[in-house]
Every structure is written in structure tokens, then in C-alpha cells.
């Protein structure tokens, strides 16, 4: 793809189950979340890039009290995952019991997937490999 990455397309990619990260044209840094400027070199020139889908769990929480939009889905995990490419992203966790958070180990390896919530939304999610 040679078009300039946009936030709108980034979100559409997730909805269509084909996640793409930003990649800085200046230094090659992968940015899992869109940014107007590269955190590495400050360049504002970005491209799309595929990711391996592999990552590890950095931290998480379990949402019990959710806004109306997500109420049907509660309780659910929201986690911070560090991708193999070095950049972090927030996503749902898939396949982990939300009532047993004590059993979830930080640093555990994960792989990228997608999950359709009861609200009808498609979420980026990570599950055990």
C-alpha cells in the first residue's frame, strides 16, 4: 500500500480483521498506535506495515463496571501487549477467565486475533498461542 496511513483506515483495518501498524519512513520504527510524529526520529512520514502478531502481556485490568455501550460484555479484560516489533498496544484478551485474574501471568506470550463483542463491535484481541 502506498497511500498515507490514516486513523480512519487504521480502525477500519481492525474492523475488517486485517490489522496494520504504522511504520516510520524515516527510521523504520513500528508504531502499533497511530501517531503524527515518530517517537524515534520525529518524522511525520508514515507507511503501513504488517506485524507478526506475536507479543507478550505487559499489564491488564478486568472491567466490571462498563459504560452502556459495553455493559453486555462485562466483565472483560483490557490489556497492554508489547508486540514482537517493540511497540505496545491496548486490546482485549481472549480465552482468559475474567473472574480469575490472579491466574494471568504478566510476560506471558500471546498472539493477535480478533473478537466480536456482544455489542457487535470487532475488537483486536490477544490469546494464548
Amino acid at each position, binding site marked *: 500500500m502506498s497511500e498515507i496511513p490514516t486513523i480512519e483506515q487504521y480502525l477500519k483495518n481492525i474492523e475488517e480483521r486485517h490489522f496494520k501498524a504504522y511504520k516510520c519512513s524515516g527510521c523504520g520504527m513500528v508504531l502499533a498506535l497511530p501517531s503524527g510524529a515518530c517517537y524515534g526520529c520525529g518524522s511525520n512520514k508514515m507507511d503501513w506495515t504488517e506485524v507478526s502478531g506475536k507479543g507478550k502481556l505487559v499489564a491488564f485490568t478486568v472491567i466490571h463496571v462498563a459504560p452502556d455501550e459495553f455493559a453486555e460484555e462485562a466483565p472483560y479484560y483490557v490489556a497492554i501487549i508489547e508486540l514482537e516489533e517493540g511497540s505496545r498496544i*491496548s486490546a482485549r484478551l481472549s480465552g482468559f477467565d475474567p473472574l480469575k485474574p490472579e491466574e494471568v501471568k504478566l510476560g506471558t506470550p500471546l498472539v493477535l486475533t480478533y473478537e466480536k463483542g456482544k455489542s457487535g463491535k470487532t475488537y483486536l484481541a490477544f490469546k494464548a498461542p
Partner: protein
Amino acid sequence: MPLKNTNIVSAAQTKFGALEGVSLREMFSEAVDKATVEAGIPKKDIQAAFIGTFIPEMLVHQGHTAPLLLDYAGMRGLPATRHEAACASGATALRAAIMAIESGMYDTVLVAGAEKMTSVSTNKATEALAAAADDEFESSIGLTFPGVFGIAAVAHMEKYGTTEEDMAYVAVKAHKNASTNPLAQFQKEITLEKALMPRYIAWPLKLFDCSPISDGAAAVVVTSNEKAKKYTDLPVKIVGSGQASASMNLCDRSELVSFPASVRASKAAYEMAGMSAKDLDFAIVHDCFTIAELIATEDLGIFKPGEAAKAVREGVTQIDGDFPVNPMGGLKAVGHPVGATGVKQVVVAYRELLGEAGPNQIPKHDTGIVHNFGGTGASCVVTIMRRGDA
């Protein structure tokens, strides 16, 4: 270089709580009256106003609030600006006032903050609060505001062994301190057992780990040295001020157990004042959640990283402890009307410094630090205050 010319000559707040039948304008006006005419300061002496309020657009369907509120409070015509930095709105309003006084542009100004949160449903208020987090990438996947601090708690528990019980001790202290504060939203003590009740909001944070949704307002009058003499023999001086921003979303942070904006802002304030944490007698920190109080005291260098929990357990942060933190009950038990909080924290510090805190008076009170933190830590303002004769 310590600030040379900024004085607080009066400070007041309304009761915080679910103030039924009291509007944003009325609360604002009450706080302003208490800090001006009732404190012997004529309103006509005020030259400009800096007002903090977070999201009245969503909460009371009102934007452009500064002139509106000032008009209601009887000061129509003054230059009036609204400052917004989520929960740090009040302190950013104060910072603007400091710059106005230190630059010599004005010599007598009003700083006030207010928020009316209970005229909408809890769900709507929660939605409004979520606007202080990254909507596009985090709120949109169902991360709530308590969730952000839940993540920080998980990271802190993993790295330092902090427990849910450690956090509960902070809540117990807050309610204990607020039980002798007639302006607090909650005025009953709670047991550790109650604080540990497993009503999870965002694991591991439970009901009693979270500050409430509240209404309230606070106001202070800030002047030059020259003008201070007109109103009081003993002003409180602002000697240091620091502010910093950070990424709003959690992914762009290398550390989740510390908030970079707090560290940066406090470093800047210490540097300006020519002080370090050792020179402080107490701290008023932003305890939007119990874990936030623990992390704030570490970020401000009051306790070493990972050691705040131990200090709380040992009673160090109690009113009669070696280093009191939030002696009047904090956000947790006094309430957190978002835009008012930053100004109310200054009111608390002012009263403690002057020895006017009644049953909540701390024994050593020459110098204090005030830490006001916005949203997920994307903004932080730190202010160092000292009693005029200290």
C-alpha cells in the same frame, strides 16, 4: 529561582458531595463569595479570573463558562479564561495566575474551580470522565477510567508486591481524616474489611479504591507581595511551580508504575523552589484512586519507588505521622468535582500551613507540596507552598 512575588491571601471551598438543587453557578458563586467579600477582599479589587472546569459541556450543557460564572458571581467585565486539563484544570488555572502575577501584568487575581456532576446519570458522568482518557484507541475498546488505574495497580503489584490490602489502608485513612471534615462528601470512618469488599470496578480496584462523582467549587485570591499586605499579615507563598504533559494512552509509556508527568512536574517545581522532598512537611496528592496516592508519593520522591505501601502501613502518612498525606481526606473521601479539585487542594494546603485545619491540623506545617494530576496522567501540575513567615 524561587518565585518571588506570588501570595495566596484567602482560600475557601463549598461542601463537596451530591449537592441536590444547587447549580454550577450557585456553587461557584458561593466559593467566590467566601474567598472574597467574606474574607475582607472587595470584589472590585480583583483584576482577572482564571477558572478551572473540566467538561460542563457534557455535564450541564454549558460551554464558555468563565464569563458566565464570573457574571453570576458579581464580577462581570473582568478578563476571564477557562482552563482545562481534565482533573488538573484547577491547578492549570492557578499556574496561569502565577504567571500573571510574576510577570507583573496583574497584582490581584481570582483562581476558582467548579464542577457539577450529579445532574446527569452516573452512566453519563462516567462517559464524561472517560473523555479524559484516549477515546479513539482506549475508551473505544471499553477501557474505563478506573481501568487505567487498574492497569497501573497490576503493574505496581507485580513490580513491588503492593497488595489490595495496602491500597485499602489508603482508603481507610482517607475516610478517617474526612470524618472530622464537615466539608467532605463522606464523613464516616470505614474498616479495612469494608474497604476490601470485593465489589470490583476494574480489577483489582474495588468500590472503596475509587473517588466518587461529586459537585463542588473552590476559590483562592492570589496577589503580589505589595497587595498581599492589604489583606493579611500572613500570606501563604507559592515558591515553586512545575507542569508537564505525557502521552494519554498507556501504550506509549515505558513505565506503568510511575507517571512521567508527575515526575517531570515535581522536578521542575523542586528546582524552581530550590528544594527537595526532604524540605517538605506534608503533601496533598491526587488520590483519584488509592493506587494513585501510593504512586504519587513515589513520583514526588517522598518515598522510594515501591516503598509507599510500607509507609502507609506504618502510619507515616497519618495526620500524626512523620509525613502526612492528604490530611483532610483527599479526593477519595472529600469528593472529586473535577474542575474544583486542583483549587480545593490549594485551600487544604493553605489551611494546614496557617494552622487553621482544626481537628485535621498536622503538627509540622511550614512547607507543603500540592500534586494535581489530569486524567490518565497526561497533565500534571505541582505547586510548592510555604507559610509567609517560615
